[in-house]
C-alpha cells in the first residue's frame, strides 16, 4: 500500500494528538466528567478500553471508524436567536462556569443513557428500532416552534444524553441492514468489496482507534430511561428540522465524539446534493480539525468517493487546496493529504452493488500496483510510447480511450475499428482504465493552457494561442470527461475552439471556453460518444450512419464504376452522395434538395430568385427596397459590440446566449444529436478561488434564505470549482457584460444604455429591466455590506440582458481589501448612475430598493447562523486574506445587528444607503481604477 512507509509517522502523529487532547475538551473542567474514559483522560487507558469494548463491537467489526462514541458533552446551542443565550460563540460557552455545572449534571444523566443502551444491547433485538423513532417524530412535531426559536441549553443537554441511545440503536439496526434507508450506506461499507477502505484504514483508523478512548462507551448498567426522558437533542436530531446545515454546525461545534460520530453516520441519510453544498466545510474540518471530527466524516467521504468520480475529484481538489495552507512538513502527513492520495490512487474503485464482480477488479488493481514503479508509471501515461506511436500523444490519447470496465467491452472495439478504418496500421490501444484519469488529464490540459497563455504579451496572441491549443485538445474529444460546473450528466464531445476568448486580466490569463456536451445517463458508465469528424457538420445523420457509409465507401470505392461525374472525378464521392452532400450549412437548405440538385448543391435560391425561376416573366425589384432591407437588417442587431483587440471577450459575452448556442450548434458535427448542449466555463490559472468559493456559498445561502422568506432580492451566485490553491474554474454568468464594457462600447450613461436596450421609460420591457436592476442592486448591496466586498470597480460588476447587475470577483472580502489604501469606505457601491436607473433619489423605485434591503437584512438576520457557520468553519486553518486578523467572524456577526429593533434597522439601512450615495470614495476609487487599470 502506498501508506506503508508513512504509517509510523502517522502513528506518532496520532499519538501526539491524543497525548495533547484538544484544549476545549480538557479545559472545560475535567471534573465535570464522571466517566474516566473521556477524551481528556490519559491516553494510556485508551488501549485497554478499546480492547474491553471489543465484544461490544464485534457485530460491526468491519467499520471501526463508525464506532459508537457515546461520550457526550454539552452540545452547542445553535440555530436560534442568540438573544436568549447571549453567551456568544458556543465554543467559548462550554468552559464557562454556569454551563459547566449543567454539564456535570448532563454527563451523569448521559451515563444513564448509556446504561439504557447497554442493557438493550444485552437484551438483543427484541427492542426494535422503530418504536422510539415514532415517538420521537411525534415529539419533534410538537417542538418545532421551540427549536426554531431557541435551543435551551438545558434541553440541548438532555438531548445529548439521548445520542448515546441513538447510537446504540443504530448499532442494533446494523444487523438488519435493510431496515432504514440510510443503512444502505452501511451495507455498502460492510460488503466485501469495500476491502480497500478497510485495508487503508488499518493504518489510519486502526492505529487510531487503539489510543482512542471513545470505545469506553462501554455500557454500564443503569436503569432504562423512560420515554419522557427522551433527550431533546436526540429529538432534534431525529426531527425533520434537523438538516444538513444543523448537522454541519453540530459537527463543527460539538466537542463530543458521540455527537460527532452520530452526525458522521447521519450524513448518510441526507440527500447527496444537500451535503455536497457543505463539501468545502466538511473537507476543511477534515483537514484542519481534530482527529475525532475527521474520523466521523471519513466513512462518509470514502463512501461517496467510491460511488462517484465527480465527488472523488471534487474532494481531491478541495483537499489539496485546503491543505496548502499548512506548513510543508505537516502537510505531507496531514490527513487531508493522505485522503487525497487515497482518492487519487484510485483505490476507491466504484463498487457496484453486486460486490463479487468488483472484487476481482480491485485485486487486479492491487496486483498492478505491486508491479513496481515502472508498471505504474507506464499505466499512468497510457500504453507504452512504443505501441502507440501512431497516435498523437499516447498519454493524452488514452485519456479519451480509457473507459470503465463496463463500457470497454461494448464500446471499445467499435471505436478502435472506426479509428483504424482509414489507417489499418493503427492499433487500437486498450489498457486498464483508470477512472479518474481522463478527467484529470482534461482539467490539467485546460489549466496548462492558462498557464502558458499568461506568458504571451498581447491579448491577440493569447486568443490565437488559446484557439490553437484548444483545437489540439479537440483531437482527443469526445472522451469520458465532463465539466464539473454542470449539473447534468454528460460527456464533453467538442470544444468549439474558435469561440473561446481570453478575458480581461492584467497579468493572468483567465479564459472562457464553450464546451459542447452530450447528455447521458451516467458519464461513468454510459458509452463515450463516437467521434464525428469536423467536416461532417451539416449532415442530419447519426454518427453511426456516417461511419457505416464511410466504411462502405472504402470497400465499394475500389470496384465502383468510375463515373465522369459533373463535379467529381473520384468514384467514391459519386456513389456516396448522401454522406457527402452535406453542404447545406445552417440547415438553410433541405437536405433532399442538396442531393437532387445536380451540379450545384451550394447555391441556394433566395425567395426572390425562386419566384423568378417559376415564372419566366422578368421580376422587378426596387433599389430602395434593397437599401431599406439592408438598413433594417443592420438595425436589427444594433447593440452588438464592436470587435476590440484589447477586449476580445466583450463581443463574445455580449452575444445572446441563445444566439450563440444556435450558431455553435449549427456549426457542430454533433449539433444534430438531441442530447447536445452547450456549456461554458471560465478557466482561471494563478488565482486562488477559495475565497470565491466561500463567497459563492454565502451567496447561495443568502439566496435560499431570501427565497425561503419570500424577499424578492435577486442575486446570482455562480459556481466555483477550486482545483488547487491557485487554479480553478468558474461558471460564467450568461448574457452578461461588465459595466466597463457597456460603457466603453456604448459610450452611453447606464440609464441611456437601459433605454437603448430595453425601450423608453414607459415600456414594460424597461420597467421590468428596472425592477430587475433594483432587486439585484438591493441584493448585492446587502452582500457587499455583509461580506465587505471590496474592489468594486465597473469591471467587476456585470449587467445582464434582463437588467440585473451581478457582482463578480470576490477577491477582497471580509477582512481584506485591495492594497489597504483605504478607498471604498462606503458600505457598498451605489453610484449616481445606479440611482439614475432607479429613477432618482426620490423615486418609488429607490424607496423600493431601500425597502428590499431592509427586508433582506431582516431575513438574513433571522438565519444568521446558517451564514456564519459557512464562514466560520472555513476559517479553520485558513491563511486566506479574508480571514486576516482575529475579528473577522465577530465583525461579520456584528453586521447582522442582532440587537437592533426593526425600526433601528431601517434607520441603519437609510444610513448605509445615504453614506454610499454621498460617498465620493466610490467615485474616487473608480477614477483610481481608471488610472491604474484603464477600467472606466
Amino acid at each position, binding site marked *: 500500500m502506498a501508506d506503508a512507509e508513512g504509517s509510523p509517522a502517522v502513528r506518532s502523529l496520532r499519538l501526539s494528538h491524543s497525548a495533547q487532547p484538544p484544549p476545549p475538551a480538557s479545559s472545560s473542567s475535567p471534573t465535570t466528567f464522571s466517566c474516566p474514559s473521556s477524551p481528556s483522560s490519559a491516553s494510556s487507558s485508551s488501549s485497554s478500553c478499546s480492547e474491553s469494548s471489543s465484544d461490544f463491537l464485534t457485530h460491526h467489526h468491519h467499520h471501526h471508524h463508525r464506532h459508537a462514541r457515546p461520550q457526550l458533552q454539552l452540545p452547542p446551542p445553535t440555530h436560534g436567536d442568540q438573544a436568549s443565550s447571549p453567551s456568544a460563540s458556543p465554543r467559548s460557552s462550554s468552559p464557562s462556569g454556569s454551563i459547566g455545572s449543567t454539564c456535570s449534571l448532563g454527563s451523569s444523566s448521559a451515563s444513564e443513557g448509556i446504561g439504557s443502551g447497554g442493557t438493550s444491547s444485552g437484551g438483543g433485538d427484541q427492542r426494535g428500532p422503530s418504536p422510539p423513532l415514532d415517538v420521537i417524530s411525534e415529539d419533534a412535531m410538537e417542538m418545532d416552534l421551540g427549536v426554531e426559536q431557541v435551543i435551551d441549553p438545558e434541553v440541548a443537554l438532555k438531548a445529548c444524553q439521548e445520542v448515546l441511545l441513538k447510537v446504540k440503536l443504530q448499532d442494533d439496526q446494523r444487523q438488519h441492514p435493510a431496515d432504514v434507508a440510510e443503512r444502505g450506506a452501511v451495507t455498502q461499507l460492510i460488503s466485501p468489496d469495500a476491502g480497500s477502505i478497510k485495508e487503508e484504514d488499518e493504518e489510519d483508523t486502526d492505529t487510531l482507534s487503539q489510543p482512542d478512548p471513545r470505545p469506553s462507551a462501554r455500557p454500564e448498567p443503569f436503569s432504562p430511561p423512560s420515554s419522557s426522558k427522551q433527550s431533546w437533542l436526540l429529538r432534534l436530531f431525529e426531527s425533520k428540522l434537523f438538516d444538513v446545515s444543523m448537522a454541519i454546525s453540530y459537527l463543527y461545534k460539538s466537542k463530543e465524539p458521540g455527537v460527532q460520530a452520530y452526525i458522521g453516520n447521519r450524513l448518510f441519510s441526507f440527500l447527496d446534493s444537500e451535503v455536497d453544498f457543505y463539501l468545502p466545510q466538511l473537507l476543511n474540518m477534515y483537514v484542519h480539525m481534530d482527529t475525532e471530527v475527521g474520523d466521523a466524516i471519513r466513512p462518509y467521504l470514502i463512501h461517496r468517493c467510491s460511488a462517484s468520480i465527480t465527488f472523488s475529484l471534487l474532494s481531491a481538489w478541495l483537499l489539496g487546496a485546503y491543505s496548502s495552507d*499548512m506548513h510543508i512538513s505537516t502537510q505531507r502527513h496531514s490527513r487531508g493529504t493522505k485522503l487525497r492520495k487515497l482518492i487519487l490512487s484510485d483505490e476507491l474503485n466504484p463498487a457496484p452493488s453486486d460486490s463479487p464482480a468488483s472484487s476481482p477488479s480491485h485485486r487486479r488493481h492491487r496486483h498492478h500496483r505491486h508491479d513496481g514503479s515502472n508498471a505504474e508509471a507506464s499505466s499512468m501515461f497510457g500504453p507504452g510510447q512504443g505501441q502507440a506511436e501512431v497516435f498523437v500523444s499516447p498519454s493524452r490519447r488514452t485519456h479519451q480511450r480509457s473507459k470503465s470496465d463496463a463500457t470497454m467491452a461494448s464500446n471499445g472495439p467499435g471505436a478502435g475499428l472506426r479509428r483504424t478504418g482509414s489507417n489499418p496500421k493503427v492499433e487500437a490501444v486498450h489498457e486498464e482504465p483508470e477512472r479518474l484519469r481522463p478527467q484529470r488529464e482534461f482539467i490539467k490540459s485546460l489549466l496548462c493552457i492558462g498557464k502558458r497563455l499568461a506568458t504571451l504579451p498581447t491579448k491577440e496572441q493569447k486568443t490565437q494561442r488559446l484557439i490553437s491549443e484548444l483545437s489540439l485538445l479537440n483531437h482527443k474529444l469526445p472522451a469520458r470527461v465532463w465539466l464539473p460546473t454542470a449539473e447534468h450528466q454528460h460527456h464533453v464531445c467538442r470544444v468549439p475552439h474558435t469561440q473561446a476568448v481570453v478575458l480581461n486580466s492584467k497579468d493572468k490569463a483567465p479564459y472562457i471556453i464553450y464546451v459542447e456536451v452530450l447528455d447521458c445517463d451516467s458519464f461513468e458508465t454510459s458509452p463515450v460518444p463516437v467521434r464525428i469528424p469536423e467536416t461532417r457538420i451539416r449532415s442530419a445523420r447519426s454518427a453511426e450512419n456516417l461511419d457505416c457509409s464511410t466504411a462502405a465507401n472504402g470497400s465499394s470505392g475500389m470496384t465502383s464504376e468510375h463515373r465522369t461525374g459533373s463535379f467529381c472525378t*473520384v468514384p467514391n464521392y459519386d456513389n456516396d452522395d448522401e454522406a457527402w452532400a452535406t453542404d447545406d450549412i445552417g440547415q438553410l437548405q433541405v437536405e433532399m434538395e442538396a442531393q437532387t440538385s445536380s451540379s450545384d448543391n451550394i447555391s441556394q435560391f433566395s425567395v426572390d430568385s425562386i419566384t423568378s425561376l417559376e415564372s419566366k416573366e422578368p421580376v422587378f425589384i426596387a433599389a430602395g427596397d434593397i437599401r431599406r432591407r439592408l438598413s433594417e437588417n443592420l438595425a436589427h442587431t444594433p447593440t452588438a459590440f464592436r470587435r476590440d483587440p484589447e477586449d476580445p471577450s466583450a463581443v463574445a459575452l455580449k452575444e445572446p446566449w441563445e444566439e450563440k448556442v444556435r450558431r455553435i450548434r449549427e456549426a457542430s458535427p454533433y449539433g444534430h444529436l438531441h442530447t447536445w448542449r452547450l456549456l461554458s466555463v471560465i478557466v482561471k490559472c494563478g488565482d486562488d478561488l477559495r475565497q470565491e468559493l466561500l463567497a459563492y456559498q454565502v451567496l447561495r445561502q443568502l439566496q435560499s434564505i431570501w427565497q425561503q422568506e419570500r424577499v424578492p432580492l435577486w442575486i446570482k451566485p455562480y459556481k466555483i470549482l477550486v482545483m488547487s490553491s491557485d487554479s480553478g474554474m468558474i461558471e460564467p454568468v450568461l448574457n452578461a457584460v461588465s459595466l466597463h464594457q457597456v460603457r466603453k462600447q456604448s459610450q452611453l450613461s447606464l440609464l441611456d444604455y437601459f433605454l437603448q436596450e430595453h425601450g423608453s421609460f414607459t415600456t414594460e420591457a424597461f420597467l421590468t429591466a428596472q425592477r430587475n436592476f433594483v432587486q439585484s442592486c438591493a441584493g448585492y448591496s446587502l452582500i457587499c455590506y455583509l461580506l465587505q466586498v471590496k474592489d468594486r470597480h465597473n469591471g467587476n460588476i456585470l449587467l445582464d440582458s434582463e437588467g440585473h447587475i451581478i457582482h463578480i470577483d470576490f477577491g477582497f472580502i471580509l477582512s481584506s481589501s485591495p492594497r489597504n489604501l483605504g478607498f471604498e469606505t462606503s458600505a457598498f457601491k451605489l453610484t449616481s448612475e445606479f440611482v439614475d436607473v432607479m429613477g432618482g433619489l426620490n423615486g418609488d423605485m429607490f424607496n423600493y430598493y431601500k425597502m428590499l434591503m431592509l427586508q433582506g437584512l431582516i431575513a438574513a438576520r433571522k438565519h444568521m447562523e446558517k451564514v456564519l457557520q459557512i464562514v466560520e468553519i472555513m476559517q479553520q486553518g485558513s491563511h486566506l486574506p479574508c480571514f486576516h486578523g482575529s475579528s473577522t467572524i465577530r465583525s461579520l456577526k456584528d453586521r447582522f445587528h442582532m440587537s437592533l429593533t426593526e425600526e433601528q434597522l431601517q434607520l441603519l439601512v437609510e444610513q448605509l444607503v445615504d453614506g454610499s450615495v454621498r460617498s465620493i470614495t466610490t467615485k474616487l476609487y473608480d477614477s483610481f481604477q481608471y488610472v491604474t487599470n484603464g477600467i472606466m
Partner: protein
Amino acid sequence: MSQVEKKAGLLRRTSSSKKPLKEKVVLMYDEIFAKEDPAKNNPRFWDELFLMKVNLEYLESKLESVDGEDVQRIQDNINSLFHHCVQALGEEHQIKVVNALQTLCALFRGVHQKNKSASGFDIINMLMGFDKAEQRMKDLMERLDSLLCGDSSESLKSLCLKLLLCLVTVTDNISQNTILEYVMINSIFEAILQILSDASSRGQHGYDAVVLLALLVNYRKYESVNPYIVKLSIVDDEPTLDGMGMVVHQALTEYNRQYKDKEEENQGGFFSTLTSMVGSMFIADADEKLSVQTNEAILLALYEAVHLNRNFITVLAQSHPEIDIAATPTTTTPTTPTTPLGTTPPSLDMMSNPELPLDPNLQTSNLLITFLKYASIVMQDTKDEHRLNSARLCLIILTCIAEDQYADAFLHDDNMNFRVSLHRMPMRHRKKAVDKNIPSRPLVCAVLDLMVEFIVTHMMKDFPMDLYLRCVQIIHKLLCYQKKCRIRLHYTWRELWSALINLLKFLLSNETTLLAKHNIFHLALLVVNLFNMFITYGDTFLPTSNSYDELYYEIVRMHQVFDNLYCMVLRVSTNTGQWKEAASKVTHALVNVRAIINHFNPKIESYAAVNHISQLSEDQVLEVVRSNYDTLTLKLQDGLDQFERYSEQPKEAAFFKELVRSISLNVRKNVSLNTLSQDVLLKEFSTIS
C-alpha cells in the same frame, strides 16, 4: 567483410578517374552481364554481391549499353539479380538491405534509360520476367512496406522512399509506367500514412512521403480506378492528416522564408534600380534574383489532399506549425501518482507538463495562412512556366477551398482573426505595404486581398486569362457563401470594385489584341455579374448601409467604363461572328448597371446645376444617391448566386498531366545517385556490422 568493403570503397574513389583496375563489385556486375549464371561457379555469389558497395553508375551504364540481342541473353541473370535484390531486402544484415535497395534503383533506372521507346511489357519482362512479375513485385512491395513501417533505421526508410520515388518517376509520363500497376495492387498507402502520422518519421521522411503520395495519386488518374485516390479520399485520422498538413506547411514556410531572405538581400540594389525604371510598370530586374524554385510537387500534394479529402479541410485551419502536436508526448512527463501532493504545491505538479514551445514572438499560424503567403509570392510573376503553373495550381486550390462549406465557415469565422502579410508586387505607383499595420481580420479578407492584388497587377499584354477567370470565380464563390449565410464581412469592398472596373477598362482598351487569343466576354460577364451580386443581394451581405451607397457611387463615378463596355458588347453582338452569343450575354447582364447609371446621372447633374456646383464631392453624390433610390427599379437576374462547381475532369486534366510530368522530371533529377549512396548510410551500418 566490412574491411573488404571499405577497401573497395577506397579503391574506387582513387581509381575511378585514372586506373583501369576494377573493383570487385564491378567484376561481379560484369559476371551478371555475361551469359553464364554467376552463381554457377560461386554459389555464394549473390550473398557476396550485396555485401559490396554498389557502383550505381557502372550498373546503370551497363544496363543502358545492353544491345537488343543481349537483352534476351542476359535476361535470366537480370531477373535473377532482381529476385535476389528483393530477397536481400529481408536480410537482417542492414548493409545488404542498403545495397539491395540501391541496386534496385539502378535496375529501374538503367532499364528505363535503355528502353525509352520500349513498351512497359518489355521492361517488366526484362526485370522480372512475365510469369514471375506479379510475385516479385508483391514481394518487393511487402518488403518495402515492412521496412517503412518497422523500426529499421531512418536512413534505411529514407532509402526505401527514394527507391519508390525513383520507381515512380522513371518515365516522363507517370501513367505510362506499367510497373506502377503492381504498386497499385500492392498498396503502400498505409506505410505512407504511418510515416506521416508519427512526428519523428514525419520530420525526416515526410516530404518524400507526401511527394510520393501525390505522384501515386496521379497514376492513370482519369483512366482507371486508382486505389490511392480512393484511400486518400477517405482518410479521417486526424493525426495523419495533420501530419500531411505539417509537411506541406513546412515546405511552403521554407519557401516563403527563402524568398524573404532573397528579397532582403536584394533590397539595396532594388531601390537604386527603381529610379532608373521608366515606362515599365513592373520591375523586371529583381525578378531574376528573387526567383526561388517553386515547389510544385508539394503544391500538388496540397491540391490532392484538399480536393480529394474533405477531412483535410480542417487541417488547413487547425494545424499549427509551431506546435508539433505529435512531438509532445515524448517530452510529456505527467506527475506520477505516487508523488504525494503535499511535497509540492498542487499547482506545480499540474503545470510541469511542457506542451508547446513558448515563444511570444511566434505568431500563431496555420497552413492556410502559409499557403496564402506562398500564393502571393508565386502569383507576383507568372512569366516563368513553373511559376505560371504554380500560380494556376494555387488558384485551383483556392477554388476548392472557396467551394467547401467548412472551409468557408472558418474563413469567415469572426473569432479567428489573423494578420496575414501577403507579398505585394513592388510597383511604381504605390508604396510598399507596411507589414506592421495589417489588421487582424478573418482569413477571408486575406483571400480577397490576394485576389484584388492579382487583378490589379496582371493587366498585361500577355494576359493570363485563365488565372483571371479563376480569380473572379473564387470571389464569386465567396460572395455566394456570404449571401447564403448572411455574413456581413467588414471588408473594404471598394478596393474590389475599383479593381474590377479597372479590369473591364483594360479589357476594353485591349480588345483587339486580347480577342485574338481569348474570349474576353466570358470574363466581362463574370465581372459584371459580381456587380450584379452586390446590386441585387447587397442587403444580405454588405456590412453597412453606407457600403451600398458607395457601390452606386463607384458605378456612377466610373460610368464611362460601363458605357463603353455596353457599346462594345452591343456592337459585337449585333455583328455576326464567333463572339455574338457571348457578347449578348454581357449586354443582358449590364441591364441593372445601366439602369443605375441612367437613373442617377441625370439626378446628379441636375443637383449640380441646381446648386451651381461644378464638381460634386463624394458626400454630395452619396446624398443624391440616397435620396433617389425609390424611383429606381431593378431587374432581378437569374442564377447570380449559382456557380459551376470545380471539376478536375475534363477541363483541368491536360494541365495536371503536364504538371505531373514536370514534377516527375524534377523529382527524378533530385533523387540523384548522390542522395542514394549517402556516406551517412555506410558509416551508420559499418558501425553496426
